[in-house]
């Protein structure tokens, strides 16, 4: 236990600067600083650093909050997901592995979307087993790949960044879809698990999120601003949901055009 008159430790000097010093040590520290100019200089330097940091960054908290951090907007996207996740569980239970679930906005989508997800799942099944030629352009050439696919799709495609989930971009290819060109990107984890991201123009402007299982493969898909997206992978709902959710967040709210 540090007594009233024991020598001052460096930790106490920091505590003094940060207002964390017990009241009964304050006098001792102040007396110490008066007698030790080197320590007093250090303490002053720390206080000056703190002032500089606050002077530089305090203003950020006064800036207007950008729309993409709007809580209502963020939670609307979240609600769509939780509704979907709940429905996907039910679908998996009822149909035991071969079911499609259609959300409330089924009228807007219908058959075209069903075909869209079927295309995505077919592409997954076809290419994910490929060892030597799973893609046309490797992930190492991502800028080129994205530029090429965007050009063919006719709108700007962004390759999701799934590194935080341990998934790396293997590469991509261009595919014929039901309504024109489709872009297909493949991601791979360290254990060899593969997920694919499929995008094409859609006929409906917007749909709810949907989940579809076909045997051992499943897909989450949705349409936003007439662009259809499908995320396919092994029918492990939790993991697939996590991947799809990450991609969804990146497509929905990142500002377009950010490289």
């Amino acid at each position: 236990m540090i007594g009233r008159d024991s020598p001052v430790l460096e930790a106490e000097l920091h505590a003094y600067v940060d207002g964390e010093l017990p009241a009964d040590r304050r006098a001792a520290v102040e007396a110490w600083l008066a007698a030790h100019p080197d320590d007093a200089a250090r303490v002053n330097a720390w206080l000056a650093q703190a002032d500089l940091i606050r002077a530089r960054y305090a203003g950020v908290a006064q800036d207007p909050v950008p729309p993409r951090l709007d809580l209502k907007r963020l939670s609307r996207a979240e609600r769509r997901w939780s509704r979907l996740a709940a429905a996907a569980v039910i679908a998996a239970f009822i149909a035991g592995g071969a079911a499609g679930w259609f959300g409330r906005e089924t009228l807007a989508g219908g058959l075209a979307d069903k075909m869209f997800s079927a295309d995505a799942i077919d592409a997954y099944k076809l290419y994910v087993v490929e060892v030597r030629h799973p893609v046309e352009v490797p992930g190492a050439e991502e800028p080129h790949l994205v530029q090429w696919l965007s050009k063919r799709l006719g709108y700007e495609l962004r390759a999701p960044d799934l590194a935080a989930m341990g998934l790396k971009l293997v590469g991509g290819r261009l595919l014929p879809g039901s309504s024109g060109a489709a872009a297909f990107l493949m991601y791979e984890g360290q254990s060899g698990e593969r997920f694919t991201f499929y995008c094409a123009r859609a006929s409906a402007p917007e749909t709810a999120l949907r989940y579809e299982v076909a045997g051992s493969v499943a897909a989450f898909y949705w349409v936003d601003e007439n662009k259809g997206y499908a995320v396919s992978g092994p029918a492990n709902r939790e993991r697939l949901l996590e991947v799809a959710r990450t991609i969804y967040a990146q497509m929905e709210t990142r500002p377009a055009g950010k490289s």
Partner: protein
Amino acid sequence: MSAFRTSLEAAIPALRRYARALTRDAELADDLVQDTLVRALRSEHLFHEGDVRRWLYTILTNLNRNRLRTLARRPSSSPIDDADAPDTAGPEAGGRDIERALSSLVDDQRAALLLVVLEGLSYREVAEVQGVPIGTVMSRLARARAQMKAYLDGERPALRRVK
């Protein structure tokens, strides 16, 4: 709006400030804040009691640490060049210097220093945010301050002259 949402909303400006100082990059900082908010919304049901603000600092600090780890694993991605950050240092002439001094710190030390100095958290709160004992927080703080002082006193490692 629920009390949780209200606290969340109220914390956004401070989170942006912390994230900006942590990354020295406005765009990246808001990405971090956005991810933090999304996670918080998603885990709302897990949050029973305690300080929402501290919980948010914890999420953001962890997300940033994961981000830096990912960057470290990907040598091809371009490093965060703080010299490219928009120059909004304002009237404070030391604005750029303080940014560069912060950049010279190890991530965990920078986070500890900013949480104490900029965000006004207590040592105990920082220990909870960083998931380490208080003693570790104090040594991070001490190392951060020594490094900052060395940097600002002119012992700059020979890099990053203003371009």
